[in-house]
């Protein structure tokens, strides 16, 4: 059986294929087709199966990561959407939390609201915070509202009533009425999408879901048909923002959960690779063409966050906590009018790309600097399928940076890289040191096309002792699809002082949500033995307005005291202190349902016979002002032996990335094929 992971990026669509028969992994990529991403998936699958001589009928697993939902939001190409809400609150969607998007730059505007005011219609109804009905749902205003939406030609309807998390009856009635009156229209009720208090975030999430729903549904249909047409029998999965997999049917109802799906697969992949290789604590460092994504994995578990802005719209779903900065291979270096050099966030992207690509780029980029210093080889991009122009890169660095600053060309190019590294290091510190983690206990997992080029210097800057470079780092996101499990998250708000009764109530909510999760796992055909449920309670001290997540695994009725102890511990981990005398309040109960997928096993690699056999050349590499140019040995990663130390300066090449070793650093391929670098700061 074969397993295939597909990651659809802006420029390339990456594939990773795992052969269960011999444990081998193969990598492949084709240009993306942004008008219909499933076209590139189909083309790539066909070419790959054909090229490797494999039968489509033997593909038993297909996982894919997609930015379709994200792009619909960014480009605002979603459905014409209407909103039904409680009387008095239709403007909440546009008022938001009333903060402006940029503190200092008043020219920065809020993103245009996804549902215009005349399609936001109020219905007479009111539920109280305890779930009691204060004003019954008024059928007349509801019917009139639906008539108005139907006449406006909306394709999708979001419903968000106040306090529906405490009692969803009014939303359910409204949803049923919309479905009855407007058959074929996509309907999202907030109590189904996110039954959690704080109306604006819930409304925004529900509206985004409704906005992307119809178009995402059509994409999923095409994707499924194409996969079927090729002859692949497996039902495809999609990775969602929490790093777990979902079936097409689940994604169809809740597409908002895929809004940060792209980078999630890389993080989940890194976590799993690190777990198997014995590196449970990782900081992921994913450097692409325009941005760098960093995140933290502690004890093999990635950190989660519950909300994030996508194109300026708040989305609240459990998601991996990934910090993004505008620094990547295409980031442009500029000298400003006051004499400082800045690198990024402007980027030449993939088109025109760096000057060295020869596609019309005119401004010096990080990639041009790396090429100038011999850190990248002009002929190694995409396994030699693309040549770069070294002379053009040197010329632009000279003209735009070295000459104006009166510096030698090497110092200018190195300066660009040092500034980029300083930016990237700040991002790494913000996900690690600033959250109370000791970076000396972590390894930097470097991937993306340019991660392994910058990782050694960035690790030194941050005080991280070692690197882990997985195989084919440029396509790790595609591989991550093969290393993930099915998962889905459930939440119920329950606002109460901590007491034996309220704990009993929370336990009841857990039971309810586990039943819901079980029903979902039934639908996904997960065997009972492969299921697990994580129970989490959001709690806080009285007087606070933010919550701490408490792991409730193993806690049952009668164990309130143990729960409170765990809350104090969790508060200490998160904020550095606890106040044992202060009253505790419960806010929301959560369950994460997981169905273990029969994942692609990671197998030990054989490796090449000796270091000497892996040498493919030597190249001059510029290290820094002190070491200057040094002769570095160039290795072919696929032929490196396992467990043999490699001394820097050295360059390790593979199809999708280049790994650098500086003088004094050493590396070794560990049994599962990852390169471990000791940076020896």
């Amino acid at each position, binding site marked *: 059986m074969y397993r295939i992971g597909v990651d659809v990026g802006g420029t390339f669509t990456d594939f990773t294929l795992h052969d269960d028969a011999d444990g081998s992994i193969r990598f492949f990529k084709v240009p993306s087709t942004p008008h219909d991403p499933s076209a590139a998936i189909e083309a790539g699958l066909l070419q790959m199966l054909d090229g490797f001589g494999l039968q489509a009928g033997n593909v038993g697993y297909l996982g894919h990561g997609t930015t379709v939902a994200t792009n619909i939001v960014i480009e605002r190409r979603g459905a014409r959407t209407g909103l039904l809400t409680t009387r008095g609150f*239709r403007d909440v969607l546009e008022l938001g939390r*009333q903060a402006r998007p940029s503190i200092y*730059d008043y020219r920065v505007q809020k993103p245009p609201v996804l549902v215009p005011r005349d399609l936001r219609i109020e219905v007479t109804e009111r539920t109280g915070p305890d779930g009691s009905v204060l004003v019954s749902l008024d059928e007349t205003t509801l019917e009139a509202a639906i008539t108005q939406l139907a006449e406006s030609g909306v394709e999708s309807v979001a419903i968000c009533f106040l306090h529906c998390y405490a009692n969803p009856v009014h939303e359910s009635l409204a949803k049923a009425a919309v479905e009855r009156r407007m058959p074929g229209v996509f309907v999202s009720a907030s109590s189904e999408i996110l039954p959690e208090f704080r109306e604006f975030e819930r409304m925004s999430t529900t509206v985004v879901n409704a906005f992307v729903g119809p178009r995402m549904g059509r994409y999923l249909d095409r994707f499924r048909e194409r996969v079927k047409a090729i002859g692949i029998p497996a039902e495809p999965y999609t990775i969602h923002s929490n790093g777990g997999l979902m079936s097409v049917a689940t994604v169809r109802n809740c597409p908002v959960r895929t809004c940060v799906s792209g980078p999630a697969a890389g993080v989940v992949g890194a976590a799993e690779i690190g777990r198997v290789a014995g590196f449970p604590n990782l900081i992921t460092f994913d450097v692409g063409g325009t941005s760098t994504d960093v995140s933290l994995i502690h004890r093999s578990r990635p950190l989660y966050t519950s909300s994030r802005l996508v194109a300026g719209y708040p989305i609240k779903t459990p998601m991996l906590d990934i910090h993004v900065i505008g620094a990547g291979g295409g980031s442009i270096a500029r000298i400003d009018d006051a004499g*400082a050099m*800045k690198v990024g966030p402007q980027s030449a992207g993939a088109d025109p790309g760096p000057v060295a690509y020869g596609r019309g780029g005119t401004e010096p980029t990080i990639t041009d600097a790396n090429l100038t210093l011999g850190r990248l080889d002009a002929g190694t991009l995409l396994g030699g399928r693309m040549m770069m122009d070294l002379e053009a890169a040197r010329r632009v660095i000279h003209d735009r940076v070295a000459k104006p600053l009166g510096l030698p060309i090497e110092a200018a190019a190195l300066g660009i890289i040092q500034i980029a590294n300083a930016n990237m290091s700040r991002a790494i510190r913000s996900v690690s040191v*600033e959250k109370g983690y000791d970076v000396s206990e972590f390894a930097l997992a470097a991937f993306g096309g340019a991660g392994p080029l910058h990782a050694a210097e960035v690790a030194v800057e941050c005080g991280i002792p070692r690197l882990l470079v997985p195989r084919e780092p440029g396509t790790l996101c595609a591989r991550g699809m093969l290393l993930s499990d099915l998962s889905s998250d459930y939440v119920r708000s329950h606002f109460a002082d901590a007491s034996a009764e309220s704990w009993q109530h929370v336990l009841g909510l857990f039971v309810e949500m586990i039943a819901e999760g079980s029903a979902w796992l039934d639908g996904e055909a997960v065997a009972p033995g492969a299921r697990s449920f994580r129970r989490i309670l959001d709690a806080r001290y009285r007087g606070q307005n933010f919550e701490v997540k408490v792991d409730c695994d193993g806690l049952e009725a009668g164990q309130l005291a143990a729960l409170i102890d765990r809350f104090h511990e969790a508060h200490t981990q998160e904020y550095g202190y606890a106040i044992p005398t202060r009253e505790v309040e419960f806010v929301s109960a959560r369950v994460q349902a997981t169905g273990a997928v029969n994942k692609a096993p990671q197998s030990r690699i054989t490796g090449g016979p000796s270091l000497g056999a892996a040498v493919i050349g030597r190249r001059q590499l510029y290290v820094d002002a002190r070491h200057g140019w040094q002769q570095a040995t160039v290795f072919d990663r696929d032929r490196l032996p396992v467990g043999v130390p490699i001394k820097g300066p050295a360059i390790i090449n593979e199809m999708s990335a280049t790994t650098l070793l500086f003088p004094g650093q050493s590396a070794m391929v560990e049994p599962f094929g990852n390169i471990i670098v000791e940076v020896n700061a």
Partner: protein
Amino acid sequence: MSKPIADPIQMEVFSNRLLAIAEDMGSILIRSSFSSNIKERKDASTALFDARGRLVAQADHIPIHLGAMIGAVETILARYRLDEMAPGDAFICNDPYLAGGSHLPDISIITPIHHDGEVRFFAGNIAHHADVGGRTPGSTSGVSRSIFEEGIRLPVIRIARAGTIDEDLLSLIAVNTRDPEERLLDLRTQIGTNLRGGAMLIALLDRMGWPATEQAIEDILAYTGRRLRNRIAALPDGVYRFERSMDDDGFPGVPVPIVCTARIAGETLELDFEGSGPEARGAINLPDSAIKASCYYCVKAVLDPGLMPNQGIIDPIRITAPPGTIVNPRPPAAVAARAVTSNRLCGAVFGALFQALPPERVMASCNDSTSATSVSGFNPRRQATYVYPESMGGGAGAFADRDGMDAVHVHTVNSTNLPAEALELEYPLILEEYCFVPDSGGAGRHRGGLGMARQIRILADGTIFSARSDAHVIPAPGVFGGKPSNVTRILRNPGTEREEVLHSKSSGLVMAAGETIRVETLGAGGYGPPTERPLDRLAADLREGKVTRAAAERDYGVEMVCRALA
């Protein structure tokens, strides 16, 4: 004038390292404090100074704190010699008149950082505490008549010596506030934050050595100064004057003008507030640190939002205000409710600076206000008293090419609202409506942003309502023929026979169960003549109900409205 940069690459790298330290301090301060002001609203800032007291780096959190610790560090340096300071010492202060403070709830902690036996840096942080005592809970009453009513005053005091906190002093401060447990926690966090910043600075000095560090500091300050001077030099020389006014001085009376005269000559900018009205009787005076922060905010926002907050943006600007005015009060004038004055002053500075810019870079006046309200009473569910603070924004000014943003906070305020669901879960109150105020934005080729309305029903007898608001009389003006906004109003029991219009600084109103309060804030000014408004935009406003037909016919004319609807 300004020195050339010795090493632009090392400067940029160093600048990232310094900012990483300031941001790290900011995140630990916000993460570890208890007050929701600090934790949720991020009403706190962290900064690094050199041994001469020059601001070297500040983490961006809230504009009213821009450069706000400079006065504190200056006071410390005037009072103590560097060789009197030991590693592990920490100073505390908050007083606007004695220690460069902003208002009493903003407490600063400043810590000298030694390396090789010398003070090389000061690490500082300032945080808005939920309460520092005084006549009203929250310590920000709009109607105090002197600073003695506003809470505990702290001149510069050494709160820690050689790493040991003076517990006696700390408890003296804490017991003078309404929640001593919270205050102790937050003050300890502030002291710890600087120690953490100090440890990181020492590691940086170990790595770079003092000479390279000193060079990089000089480069950063020279660079920022050069960048700002370039922006100023690009403006036409001249004298530009703009006036905004407060409705009154905190008690019913006549408007109080705030006049800004911007004098631009070559690379220098002077902001002079001569002509501004007298010191207020109420608590809306703007002390030195707050007027400076407001001016730095304006210059950064209007000329170059990317300017790094350090001494380099401070030195090229000269700020003068005549003593005894609302913008340069004398002790013991009350200052607690300075936020609304700060925003109005920013409106005056923006208006003056915009006259030096081409029309396409001009924005019409924003609401330049903020309406803070407080509802307090007894919560039967909790069997305890509660205080619910809220602050509301309004419209943002229209631009040459687009309408102003609806319903946002502007200038030095940027706090978030309390969601209806959180409000109703917590307090015996019901939020009946939260919406835009139609017709509140000034008409024009581009319309000013709309204000917002919030209507609350009270569920328990004996509930107390207070407001610190303004712009109930004077609207936000339009520009280049654009119309002004409406004005703010606060209504008690709107739409009933008992409806009553309240004064902007109503204080201590006792309300009964079933009564309602409605606050409607002002919008912002329009840009360009209404006759030039694109018909499709006017049609959209009418369709969306952001502008009513009657108002549109008044501002745009019946004929234009008919064409828009055709």
